[in-house]
């Protein structure tokens, strides 16, 4: 064995290593290691949130139940080892993010959207300016009602990668802010770039908001024909949308067929159960509809679902069952959906807390200026006794021509209080045409308003 040569070789490697260490230390200006705080003292001071990647890779509670959970677990496992090709990691993070979005929808659990957001943040950290990260984050921000931030991100995305999805996201953000003209441009570009399910459902919703029910039905039916029959969630969603358009058009039989198809596609779909409940209620089958309202509120206890259930329970004389539902609504409504909660609080029959309703509606309008936010504000102003202001605000809510039973009912009630004899019968007539879309308590209110007019006509 040639020891001098061995020693020389080892010396060379060690010297090389040491030189590298010194060089790197100087270049990178390594900070001295920070000793951990003494364990016996309580640590306070700036909060360092856990890194997005840690949150993404930590197993979720109740994970591994469904195929979706298993896919999420597989991607978490793939991403766990550090390193790897950056492009492959970005692709895996992107897929994992959308799987979290899918899980949020499947389980009605916004917590998974929060993790999708962490995927987008990690993608952005690994590849600044990544269009995929912008699209994913934009979607999540939109879900979280952060519409101004969504718009900023969507505009960046359109500039970086002007895809149909980018224009769709931009249009969505603009729609919620009540900027329908700009939204229509974005949606039109999306339709031109990629006519298909995603663009048709947006166009259908846009037409509906502008009061073109026939056009909305036509496009939504077209979109329904494009859904993969094996994709239960999408099929159920599309079917219930068509069902609601049919309900509004007064075609109760067709509406019921579509709602049944939605439930058949996805038996626990909250929106499908809500739609079927409303259709059965419109058919006068109040008792039968209760099961669907209960199923909807159990699957997804959002304020809208809880309010529908409570109102139908009251209509069926089930006051004792309605009380805890309303309690839950009061506990969660402010945070989960302040606009619907404001409407609930301001509804004259409930007559509970107009001041809070007004405060919530005003706050909501700062973030979301669509016709329904104007309606919530007008209704809350009316409940607070500001009739003239409410009348002005209601004009904003009706400005786009949206044909909605609740909008017209509110407009009629406010016009009555303001002694607006010219508009009152118009609004009443329109609300009456759409009364199948109203809650039982709203139908009663409409009836009470209509009766004096009928008597006046009889005389």
């Amino acid at each position: 064995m040639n020891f001098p040569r061995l020693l020389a070789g080892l010396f060379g490697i060690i010297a090389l290593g040491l030189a590298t260490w010194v060089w790197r230390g100087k270049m990178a200006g390594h900070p001295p290691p920070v000793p951990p705080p003494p364990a016996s003292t309580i640590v306070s001071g700036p909060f360092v949130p856990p890194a997005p990647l840690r949150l993404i890779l930590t197993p979720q509670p109740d994970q591994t139940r469904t195929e979706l959970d298993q896919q999420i677990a597989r991607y978490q496992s793939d991403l766990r080892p550090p390193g790897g090709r950056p492009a492959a990691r970005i692709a895996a993070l992107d897929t994992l993010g959308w799987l979290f979005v899918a899980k949020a929808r499947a389980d009605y659990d916004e917590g998974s959207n929060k993790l999708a957001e962490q995927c987008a943040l990690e993608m952005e950290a690994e590849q600044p300016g990544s269009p995929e990260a912008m699209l994913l984050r934009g979607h999540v921000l939109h879900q979280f009602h952060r519409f101004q931030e969504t718009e900023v991100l969507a505009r960046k995305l359109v500039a970086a990668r002007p895809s149909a999805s980018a224009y769709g996201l931009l249009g969505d953000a603009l729609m919620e802010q009540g900027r329908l003209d700009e939204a229509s441009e974005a949606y039109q570009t999306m339709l031109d770039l990629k006519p298909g399910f995603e663009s048709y459902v947006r166009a259908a919703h846009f037409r509906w908001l502008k009061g073109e029910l026939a056009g909305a039905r036509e496009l939504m039916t077209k979109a329904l024909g494009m859904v993969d029959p094996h994709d239960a969630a999408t099929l159920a969603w599309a079917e219930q949308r068509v069902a609601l358009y049919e309900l509004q058009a007064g075609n109760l039989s067709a509406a019921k067929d579509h709602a049944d198809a939605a439930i058949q596609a996805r038996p626990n779909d909250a929106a499908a159960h809500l739609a079927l409940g409303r259709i059965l209620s419109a058919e006068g089958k109040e008792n039968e509809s209760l099961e669907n309202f209960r199923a909807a509120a159990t699957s997804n206890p959002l304020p809208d679902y809880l309010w529908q259930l409570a109102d139908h329970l009251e209509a069926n004389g089930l006051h004792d069952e309605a009380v805890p539902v309303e309690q839950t609504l009061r506990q969660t409504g402010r945070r989960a959906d302040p606009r619907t909660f404001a409407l609930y609080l301001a509804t004259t029959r409930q007559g509970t807390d107009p001041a809070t309703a007004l405060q919530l509606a005003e706050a909501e309008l700062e973030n979301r200026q669509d016709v329904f936010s104007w309606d919530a504000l007008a209704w809350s102003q009316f409940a607070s006794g500001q009739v003239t202001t409410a009348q002005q605000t209601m004009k904003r809510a009706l400005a786009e021509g949206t044909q909605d039973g609740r909008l017209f009912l509110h407009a009629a009630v406010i016009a009555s209080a303001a002694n607006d004899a010219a508009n009152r019968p118009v609004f009443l007539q329109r609300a009456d045409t759409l009364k199948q879309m109203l809650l039982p308590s709203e139908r009663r209110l409409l009836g009470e308003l209509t009766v004096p007019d009928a008597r006046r006509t009889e005389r």
Partner: protein
Amino acid sequence: MSHSLSRRPRAKQFAAGLFLWLATVPLVLAHDPGLSSIRLTTAPTGLEAVLTIHFYDLEAVDPDLDVNHDGRLDSSEFAQARNRLDQLARQSVTVAVDAEAPLALAQNPQVNLIENNNLQMHLRFVPVATGRRLMVTSPLVPRLPHGHREFIELSNADGKPMGEGFLSASANQLSLDLPVRLNGATAAMAPPSGIRFGQFFFLGATHLLGGYDHLLFLAGLLIVCRSLLKAFQMLTLFTIAHSVTLTLVTLDLIKAPGTVIEPAIAASIAYIGIENIFRPKADLSWRGVLTFSFGLVHGLGFAGALKELGVGSGGSGVFRPLFFFSLGLEMTQLGVAVMVFPTLLWLRTKPAFSRWWLPACSGFIAAAGIFWFVQRVFFGG
């Protein structure tokens, strides 16, 4: 190292294709449910818990925090809510060891208003000498906004992570494995949650296959071996050497900064390539010593992969991941050698190979080593 992350095109299509349209659906929109965290630390003075949560999330439990409804919690509003928040802190988290009764608090909770309107609740539970499993329960999470998640992380007194997980309204309990001693600074770390031992085997295998530098070094060793016995001897020496350093680093007995090791590995590849060109018939003992020495360096590099996963420090919970990781490495190394070496032996019977191809391949190996060395030293690659 490379991973097969871009596989599963169907899943990608499933995720991206079917759910992009969701943004149009007005009915499914909801507000941000929030994310809070609890940091648990075992210490000689007791088990410390620090819950950090945004006040906006706590408004679901106490709607009167933001008195003036300006969307912020100022110091006067915090002062007004202080007693209520102290009460809330007491009910925010309970901790039990080995299915015993929940631990008592060692002192009154302390609640602070910190940056960005976050609240921090400090709780200290009585010290516990021994235990195998910690059950953390959050009675608070089910009362927070629908969909809220709480991230739990447990670390020992040295700050070494011992486990982590999420709580939600439907699963507001989490069981965490503990080191044998709760209150010691030498507490060991459990394998990171979610990683099974089979995955350590897989990680070892993919680390070798994905690390072109290690494969090239192996090729450099095998290409000059003239018999199966010599090849076997070289592989054995390399294996023994890198197992030694891999174990020492994983057990925290020696430190191996990546900034030194990675260029040194590149240098070893360059050296092997150059020696193959100039001294292709070097005597076996010299080659053996060289292989062993470089094996020690490569072992330090292998250890980096395990350390990055947080495996190490202490005693229990280290050996099995280490064993399976090493097994994955060795089996893959052997597999590669078995597949490649017969071809090399056959090629060596061709005079042209020894004359032209061997130096050319060695030159390629040397060039790759030099390239990686420059990249790792000067460009941080």
